[in-house]
């Protein structure tokens, strides 16, 4: 049964220094508020996992929370580069950032394997690319029936996965809809999970395209309206495209970023 509580308590109880943490969300339903709470609580040495690290990961990296990033596409979607990410990779600022780089297909299948209790996944992937030469977690595997060679990637099993969803009921059952990304797999692959939701309701009325994560598959739920801003929650909010654009100049400059960081640290947690 998922416990319903505050974001600050949930992050404090679930996420420790050195953990492997996935904040998932494929442009939609990105758990930004939870990321900011991780920054406020000063977590360090995290291995951050995400298919599409964008602004919130740029912020976590710039704040020095991460020692490693496992990912397949890091950028500010529709705008350009992640400058804190670049600064960490190119200049080790504020701390060095190790990277483990995959493709989307590889990352998605790593979560699928993790959710399935398997140690690895098989795909047609990476063939001919330079990725296997820089990423140790890509290996060949031979089909025992046809002899064909394919690619194997190891399961991802984060210590904690954090996602944002539209709703939960008072028992902690979680409902989300619209673009679903890899959130279900990321939650099921994780040892512990936190779901921030737009609202806690009495009953999860059916919604076309919605999936439900039963309460017993989730560790904690926190009600954080707008917790996906600047991304959006379909049916609740619109994507704040201006914020994505505004992030570019902030992240380009260490001092601007420091100012932003100070403000976030002073915010009262949700």
């Amino acid at each position, binding site marked *: 049964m998922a416990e319903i509580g505050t974001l600050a308590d949930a992050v404090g109880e679930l996420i420790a220094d050195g953990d492997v943490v996935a904040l998932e969300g494929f442009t939609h339903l990105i758990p930004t508020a939870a990321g900011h709470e991780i920054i406020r609580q000063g977590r360090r040495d995290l291995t951050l996992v995400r298919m599409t690290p964008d602004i919130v990961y740029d912020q976590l990296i710039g704040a020095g929370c991460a020692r490693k990033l496992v990912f397949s596409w890091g*950028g500010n979607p529709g705008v350009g580069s992640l400058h804190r990410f670049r600064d960490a990779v190119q200049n080790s600022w504020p701390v060095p950032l190790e990277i483990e780089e995959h493709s*989307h297909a590889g990352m998605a299948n790593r979560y699928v394997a993790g959710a399935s209790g398997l140690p690895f996944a098989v795909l047609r992937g990476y063939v001919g690319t330079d990725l296997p030469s820089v990423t140790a977690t890509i290996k060949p595997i031979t089909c025992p029936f046809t002899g064909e060679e394919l690619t194997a990637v190891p399961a991802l099993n984060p210590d904690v996965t954090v996602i944002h969803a539209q709703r939960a009921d008072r028992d902690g059952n979680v409902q989300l809809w619209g673009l679903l990304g890899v959130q279900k797999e990321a939650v099921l692959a994780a040892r512990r999970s936190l779901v921030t939701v737009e609202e806690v309701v009495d009953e999860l009325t059916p919604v076309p395209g919605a999936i439900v994560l039963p309460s017993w598959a989730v560790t904690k739920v926190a009600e954080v309206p707008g917790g996906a801003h600047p991304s959006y929650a379909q049916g609740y909010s619109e994507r704040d495209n201006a914020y994505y654009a505004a992030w570019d100049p902030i992240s380009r400059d260490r001092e601007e970023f420091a100012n932003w960081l100070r403000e976030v640290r002073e915010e009262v947690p949700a």
Partner: protein
Amino acid sequence: MTYTSDEMMAVAAARALSGRQRVFVGIGLPSTAANLARRTHAPDLVLVYESGTLGSKPDRLPASIGDGILAETADAVISVPEVFNYWLQPGRIDVGFLGAAQLDRFGNINTTVIGGDYHHPKVRLPGAGGAPEIAASCREVYVVVRQTSRSFVERVDFVTSFGHGTGKGDRERLGLRGAGPTLVITDLGVFRPDPDTSELVLTDLHEGVALDDVRAATGWDVKVAPELGRTPPPTAEELSALRALKEASK
């Protein structure tokens, strides 16, 4: 009507799509072109986005691959693992429509690092995203890219997505099923792989572009097709559709 070279590129790319083709659409230039095609001569195009939408029919340009309008107008919304495993990987997609930070003479794509080595790059780019498997699995790949001598290079610094490798036969040797990049559309012209060598050859110049412009913006000694075509300029209808799409997305 006057138009920019970017508009020419978008229009030329849009014209490459037709009928009921299933197109796996990267964000940015490919998405602009695919949506323009759907709004003009190819209303039945099936647009597939890696965020998990099949048959999206947006009436404006999506701001990102995760724009809500892609889900709201789709025939089906599916998970990200499903889009890669059930729809891309088995070869159900006709055209993979990709951008590139760096593209080489054999159509290999780099969106990972430029300069230095991988661990100490001069420029760290976003990385692979869906592109390696899009480039591998779609029947054909079209690349849309702004052409400069820095982006159009003899050999990419990092092969993020495999094109034709070092030439003819490399894809077959690796067991890749799709044909790889069969068309590259830039702001200057159109390139296609030579049927014998798979080297990208200039086959069309956009209206108003000189051959020397292309040579200056190509990092290798570019070959030119014996019968060099001319891309007709954007029609008024194409331009107004393109501008309306962009306007609506503001």
